[in-house]
């Protein structure tokens, strides 16, 4: 390993040879004993320390954020999206009731004898007076 190669690696990976690619570490350690290589490492270590400074995130702040997450989860549970609400068992009751009524109606229509009697028609006419029904409502 030449000094230039050593410098280039130090500029990429910093001043801690243990963090360099494994294949380069042994040769780098041999070279690090020299004065110039040692100076390069010291300079990079100074930058490493600076670059590793982290923004402050206190326990309290992290706790508040975590609490906000749990609140959002609880809210999402209370107000699920419409497609989830549709898939709930309770939401099937009206549709199932309607379907059952329709099936009973169809079954009755098929099973009962069809008798076109004048009296029966007159009862229907009395209930649904066609002349009294317009587009705008019952007169």
């Amino acid at each position, binding site marked *: 390993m030449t000094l230039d190669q050593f410098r280039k690696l130090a*500029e*990429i*990976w*910093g001043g801690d040879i243990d*963090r360099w*690619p494994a294949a380069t570490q042994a040769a780098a350690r041999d070279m690090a004993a020299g004065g110039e290589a040692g100076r390069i490492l010291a300079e990079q270590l100074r*930058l*490493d320390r*600076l*670059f*590793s*400074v*982290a*923004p*402050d*995130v206190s*326990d309290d*702040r*992290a*706790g*508040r*954020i*975590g609490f*906000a*997450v*749990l609140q*959002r*989860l609880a809210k999402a549970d209370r107000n699920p999206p419409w497609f989830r609400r549709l898939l709930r068992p309770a939401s099937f009751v009206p549709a199932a009731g309607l379907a059952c009524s329709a099936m009973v109606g169809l079954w009755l229509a098929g099973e009962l004898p069809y008798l076109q009697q004048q009296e029966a028609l007159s009862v229907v006419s009395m209930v649904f007076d066609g002349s009294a029904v317009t587009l705008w409502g019952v007169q």
Partner: protein
Amino acid sequence: MNEDLSDEALMAAVAARQQQAFRILMGRHMQRAVRVAQRVVRDSAEADDIGQDAFLRVWSHAASFDPDIARFTTWLYRIVLNLAFDRTRRRPLAPIDEASDISAPDPEPVERLIADEERRALEQAMAGLSERQRGAIALFHMEGLSGEEAARAMNLSAKAFESLLARARATLREHVEKIQNPRRYA
């Protein structure tokens, strides 16, 4: 719920909708998620939002986590970085956070002055990096990930991460030196 369980075991419980496991995971990793987000977006309020969104994604996508492919932290970093990159793309001009938001150990007063100066220089210099370069610096230097782990978290090849880190360090170094020695660069 046993608090000594590994992250991966906790994730299996989260996938089974056990909220206690989820709380433990948040307690362990919320700080690092917000820290990385803040380093990339350079805004504490946005970093908080990203922390929330990241863990909501952990909850809703828990079933898709595969411990054979990645460690939980790698997966979490990837979620956080994707959210942070999305936000910086939508908001090209990011505000610079106050240097007081940076954690400091407790050095001697004179050393602290120098350290504060350096930290301010770092914050200003960070503004000169792309969001991906800030991500690389955050993972490799701040979080102490190896090059391979950081590359996986950023969904990059080892070579691509190496060149990203090299550019980030070179740019940062140049900016820090410019800020600290303005006369030399005038």
